C-alpha cells in the first residue's frame, strides 16, 4: 500500500484561482452582482463580497493552522469516545474527509477531498489513546501532508453530557501544505467547528441534518450558486444510518 503520487500535481491556474488574488476577483464579482441584482439579498451579497475582499487583501495564505472547537453533547464520555475511536466513522462527520480506512489498531489511511475535488491521501497513526478521555493522532513522518489532531472528552459537572474538544494542526513542511491551507480557507476554525457540530448530531440524533439532494423549483443562475453555500448540493458523501448513542435513543 503506497501513496498515489500521480494525483497530487496541480496546474498553475487552479492554484491561482484559489489564491487571494482569485478571491479578490471573486469578491469583486460578488459585490457587483449583489449591487446590480436589487433584490432582498443584494445588500447582504454586496456586503459579503466587500468583507471577503477586505479579508483577502489583508491576510495571506496561512502556512499552518492550529484550531480548536468545543461542543457539549448529550452523551456520556464512553459513548462519545466509542464513536470517535473507530476512525472509519470520521468520514461521517468530517466534511472534507472522504474516507478513513482502519489498517490496524493504531494505523489508518485518510483520503481527503481538496480543492477541485482532488483526492489527497496520507497515513496516520494514533499516538495517544486514553480510554474515554483522549485520542491523539498524527500523520506518519513520511506522509506528504503533516497534520495532527486530538480530541478530548470531559464530563459536564452536573451530568449534562460531555464536552468534546477537537484540535487540528496542519504544519508546514509537507509538499501539500499550501494546498491544505487553501482547503481550510481563511477560517480553518470554521471547518473544525462544523465537523464537531456534525459529530454532535451523529451522536445525539443518529444522523446529520441535510438538504443535500432535496426537491426544489428552478434555481436560476443565482440560486445555483447559493445551493453550494446552503449545502443543497456538494461533494459530501450520502448520509448513512447510525445508531444514536444519546441517553434517550
Amino acid at each position, binding site marked *: 500500500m503506497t501513496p498515489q503520487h500521480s494525483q497530487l500535481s496541480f496546474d498553475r491556474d487552479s492554484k491561482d484561482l484559489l489564491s487571494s488574488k482569485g478571491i479578490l476577483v471573486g469578491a469583486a464579482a460578488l459585490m457587483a452582482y449583489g449591487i446590480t441584482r436589487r433584490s432582498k439579498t443584494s445588500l447582504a451579497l454586496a456586503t459579503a463580497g466587500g468583507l471577503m475582499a477586505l479579508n483577502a487583501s489583508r491576510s495571506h495564505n496561512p502556512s499552518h493552522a492550529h484550531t480548536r472547537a468545543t461542543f457539549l453533547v448529550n452523551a456520556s464520555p464512553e459513548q462519545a469516545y466509542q464513536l470517535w475511536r473507530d476512525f472509519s466513522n470520521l468520514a461521517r462527520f468530517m466534511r472534507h474527509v472522504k474516507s478513513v480506512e482502519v489498517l490496524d489498531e493504531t494505523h489508518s489511511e485518510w483520503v481527503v477531498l481538496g480543492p477541485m475535488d482532488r483526492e489527497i491521501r496520507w497515513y496516520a497513526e494514533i499516538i495517544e489513546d486514553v480510554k474515554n478521555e483522549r485520542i491523539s493522532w498524527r500523520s506518519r513522518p513520511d506522509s506528504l501532508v503533516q497534520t495532527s489532531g486530538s480530541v478530548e472528552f470531559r464530563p459536564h459537572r452536573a451530568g449534562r453530557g460531555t464536552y468534546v474538544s477537537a484540535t487540528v494542526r496542519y504544519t508546514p513542511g509537507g509538499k501539500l501544505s499550501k494546498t491544505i491551507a487553501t482547503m481550510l480557507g481563511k477560517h480553518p476554525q470554521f471547518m473544525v467547528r462544523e465537523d464537531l457540530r456534525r459529530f454532535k448530531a451523529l451522536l445525539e440524533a443518529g*444522523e446529520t*441534518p441535510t438538504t*443535500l439532494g432535496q426537491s426544489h423549483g428552478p434555481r436560476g443562475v443565482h440560486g445555483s450558486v447559493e445551493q453550494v453555500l*446552503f449545502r443543497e448540493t456538494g461533494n459530501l458523501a450520502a448520509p448513512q*444510518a447510525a445508531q444514536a448513542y444519546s441517553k434517550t435513543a
Partner: protein
Amino acid sequence: MKAVCWMGKENMQVHNVPDPTILNPRDAIVRITSTCICGSDLHLYDGYVPTMEQGDIMGHEFMGEVVEVGPGVSRDKLKVGDRVVVPFTIACGNCPSCQDKLWSCCDNSNPNAWIAEKMMGYSPSGLFGYTHMLGGYAGGQAQYARVPFADIGPIKIPDGIPDEKVVFLSDIFPTGYMGAENCNIRPGDTVAVWGCGPVGQFAIRSCFMLGAGRVIAIDRVPERLEMARAAGAETLNFDEVDVLEALREMTGNQGPDACMDVVGMEASGHGIVFAMDKAKQMMRASMDRPIVVRQAIIACKKGGTVSVPGVYASFIDNVPMGAYVNKGLTMKTGQTHMMRYMQPLLERIQNGDIDPSFVISHVLPIDQAPEAYKTFRDKRDRCTKVVLKPWESAMAA
C-alpha cells in the same frame, strides 16, 4: 409533483418538481392532503426575510398520509398509512434543547446552523419551507414533502376528524396557545392582543381557555375584529382610536396584565415613527417595523408580561428600554415548541372545546396559490385563512 415555489419578491409560482425522496434514515415522505398559507409566509412573499432563494418550496402548515419511512424510524412510532399533522419546527428529540422540551430550539435540525449563529449567536431549529438560514428545508405547499426526524414531530390523527379541524395543529393553533401561555395568565387577568389574524384569533381563544377575564383585541380589518368579538373579546380599531389612551381608560389607568404582539415585523401604524420605520424597511436599512412591540411595552401594566409570538427577522431600534426596565416587565418569546402542545390541543379539539376551522375563509386548489398569496396579503375578499388542496385541479372553488 406540483409545488408552490418562491421565485422572488411577490412572485410565487406553481412548478412541477421532482418528488421528494428519503435522504436520511429518520426521514418519512408524506402525501399531503391539506396545506395552508401562513402569515409568516407573507414576510417571505414580501421579500423581507434574508436567505430565501429562487426555487424554494414554500409551506410549513401541512398534513397528509405517510407513504414512505426511512430505516431509522421505528414502526411503533410511525408507519406507512398513518394520517399525520406535521409540526412546522423540526426537532431531533435527543439534544439538550429537545430534552428541555425547547423543541423549536433543537440543536441538530438546522444544516445551516452556522448562518443563524452569525446573526443570533446560536441557531434555532430548522423549519419547513422557510429561509436557508433556518435550514432551507423544502416545504409543504406541494403534493409530497420529506419530513426529517419523522419519529419525533408528526402527530397521528384518527380517522373521522376532517382535515380542516386538525390541520392548524401544524402551527397557528399551538402558536396562538403558546403566546397565551407566555402571558402568565392568572384567573381574571386582562390581556391585550395586537393582531387579529389567524394566530391572533387562536391566541384570543386560548387566553380565555387559560382563564383570562377580558381580552382586548386590536386590529383594523372589520371581519377580523368581528371574529374576535365572536370569541368574546372587546375590540379596538387602531385606525379609529388612540390605542394607548383606550387601553388606559378600559383598565382604569392600570394597563393590561399582559400584552401580546401577534403582528411582528410588518406592523402598520400611524405617525412619524411609523413613517421612519417604513422608510428604513423599504431601504433595507432594517428588516423589521417594530411598532407593536414598542406599543405593547408602553401599554403594559407594571410588572406585567409582554408575549411575542409575532415574527421578527433581525434588529429593531427605538425600543422603549427605559419603560421596559422601570416597569419591571417580562418578555416571553419563541418559535412554538410544537411537540408540547399538539397532543393536548388535539384532545381539546376532540372534546369539542374548540373547532379551529372557524378561521378558514378560502379552500383552493394548489394551482391558485399565487393569487391566494396576494389576496391574503392584501386582506381582500374577507380573506383570513387559505387552505390549499394539492390534489384538486383548478376548478370553481
